[in-house]
């Protein structure tokens, strides 16, 4: 199992590196999808099958597709990156990485046997103690929906199509 774990971790990290260094938007997108899949595998290995599935369905399946739609609408925008601008953020990132790793590993190492958490448990938790969170999420989604719809109407107007 550790091997699979390590392999998917490497794939995730490598794919993410590719995401942030590609010029072509579509390429970056696709690499991101790969990364998401690798992360889903990791989640599976950690016993969270439900969210692994959710990750693929919603994250890779819906959100990335949204991105694809937008790229389709706008047209391929290529982003040129000056190599010089990498220096600062990379250093910053490395510093932060070092700090986080230090914090993470400073506690005692724990290895507990992985227990699978079934969707049933998740469902009970959602509709039990986290009920309010579910309701709020509903609000959030409604807000997102309304906002996107409203902005879409303005977009239709500005693009010159006759709105209804």
């Amino acid at each position, binding site marked *: 199992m550790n091997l699979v774990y390590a392999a998917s971790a490497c794939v995730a990290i490598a794919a993410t590196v590719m995401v942030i260094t590609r010029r072509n938007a579509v390429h970056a997108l696709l690499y991101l999808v790969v990364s998401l899949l690798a992360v889903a595998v990791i989640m599976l290995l950690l016993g969270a099958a439900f969210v692994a599935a959710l990750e693929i369905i919603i994250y890779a399946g819906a959100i990335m597709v949204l991105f694809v739609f937008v790229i389709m609408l706008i047209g391929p925008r290529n982003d040129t990156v000056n190599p010089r601008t990498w220096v*600062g*953020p990379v250093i*910053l*990132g490395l*510093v*932060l990485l070092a*700090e*986080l790793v*230090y*914090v993470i590993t*400073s506690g005692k190492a724990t290895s507990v046997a992985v227990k699978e958490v079934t969707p049933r448990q998740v469902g009970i938790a959602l509709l039990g103690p986290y009920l309010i969170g579910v309701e709020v999420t509903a609000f959030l989604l409604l807000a997102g929906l309304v906002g996107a719809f409203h902005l879409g109407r303005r977009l239709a107007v500005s693009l010159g199509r006759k709105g209804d």
Partner: protein
Amino acid sequence: MIMSWMWLIPALPLLGFIVLATLGRRMHSAGVAAVGTGSVGLSMIASAAAVWLFWVSAPPGGSVTVTLWQWVSAGSFSPSVSLTLDALSAVMIMVVTGIGFLIHLYSVRFMGGEEGYSRFFAYMNLFVGSMLLLVLAGNLLLLYLGWEGVGLCSYLLIGFWYADPENGRSARKAFIVTRVGDVALVVGLFLIATNLGTLDIATVASRAVSTWAPGSAIAVAAAALILGGAVGKSAQLPLHTWLPDAMAGPSPVSALIHAATMVTAGVYLIARTHVIFTLAPDVMMVTAIIGIAGVLVAGFSALAQTNIKRVLAYSTMSQLGYMFLALGVGAWSGAIFHLVTHAFFKSLLFLAAGVVILAMNHEHDIFAMGGLARKTPYTFWTFLLGALALTALPPTTAGFASKELILSRVWESGSGGRILWVLGILGVFVTSVYTFRLIFTVFGGKPREASPSNHPAQGHDEAHRGALKEGLAAGRDGRQAGVIMGVPLLILAVLCVVGGFLDLPRTLGGSPFITRFLETALPAGNHATEMPLSTDSILQIISEAVSLLGIPVGWLVSRRAVRIVTQTRAPEARPGFVRFFSGGMGFDWLYDRVIVRPFLWLWNVNKRDVADRISDGAGGLNMLFSRALRFTQNGRVRWYAAGVAAGAALVIAAAVLL
């Protein structure tokens, strides 16, 4: 009995000042004159009464002290406001209030119609009040208060016609140069206060005698510093350059402040603290040298002046030199007597000169005057009497008596005294020459027309000036221009004639009234009878002959000068030595080069000085930070995100490390 109302003597003029300063603008000019002159007049009556009572009652210790209140009470230093009336201050208050009253009376008419009439009398009253405080002070701190007060009034009155910036410059020059002396005096007072623990004059005298050894460094230092203060106030070398320029003020001011009273404050100070000076014989010698140097420098400078008041100014400086010479050889009462007689004849000369100036439409150049003996006879005769007193010639006795008192003491004062005596005689000669040069130029020769008005102030009341000009130029002079101006001249002239009887020399009978009177305050010394009468007589004959010799020499010099001027040679064409003398023997030039210019250079260089740089640096640092921090507000979203990330890094690091 004097004690209960002695405080009125300085208080009345000060009260006059307050009234005039607050209400003067709204008062009628007659009221202003009444208050201004009346306050001094009342003070004069009070002084006369006080002196009479003092003389009659002969209080023990020779002095009456009134302590008004405790001024400062700081530990062991507790000077009080106390007034002391002894023989010395009695003489001084009579001079100040008497001559002050006459000059105030004269100014009623002289300054009539001037804008700032009430301001003038307010300042004059303040001056008289401060001077009285100075001479009546029983405490050196109170004396210094009066000292500063008269310095302030001198500045205010020299620059009275403030519209002309030159007058302001002269006033500032006077103030600054005397300031140098004042600093020396203050340091001297500090020295005395810390060393002897008191500033009360009588206590200082007794403690100094008991604790300071003669010739010790502390006595020399204290005496030298007091001398410094006196030198500044009395316009002696090297702090004398302000007196000729102080003539920018009105003639009554020159008469009162720069002839009779303020400039004699230095002489008074040294006489008052003579105990300290007798403990430092070297300083006394320096005083004598400064005195005789002043006599000669001022005398020669007076020979080349063209401004009538400047001649009199240098003459004042020269006569003050005689007083310092007297102080330097220990002839304390001689110096004070000369102070009194000098007040008589010098103020007479200044007041008469004021009439002359008015008659010539504010003309000050003596070569623009002439023949006034016939045009203004009254003024001529009074001026002549004053001049005769100055040169110690008959029929006036005042100048003669006092000068002989000084010169005979000088001759007796040891081997150096002979040299000083010779130089003193030279001074008598020069005095006579410049005096008669002045008289022959102004009053002799052909009459000249009055030139158009060159009044020192601008924006003056032309109508009034015109009326006065007509009155005077048409031949009416002091007497008819106003009894008010003529009476003081008359009184002073009479005093010049008879004043000598206050202390006639032995050779003429001897009536050492003043010396005896002052003995309670100023030791007369016991060398007065050492010189044989015959030597005394010969010396006096010599000095009289020298003085008489000055008359024809003065006449010759005056003729030549007038001839030169009427042949319209430009002033720059005068011979070099004449220009040298006319410029006060180069002292102004020297001070300008050595002191003023380097100071201005330093000021220019240091314009952005260290303190400025520090405060600028604070501002500059601020701007530096601002410029650096500006970069954080660049509108780039990624930059802000980087800021957030960096902050997170810092916080985690802080949490981890701390």
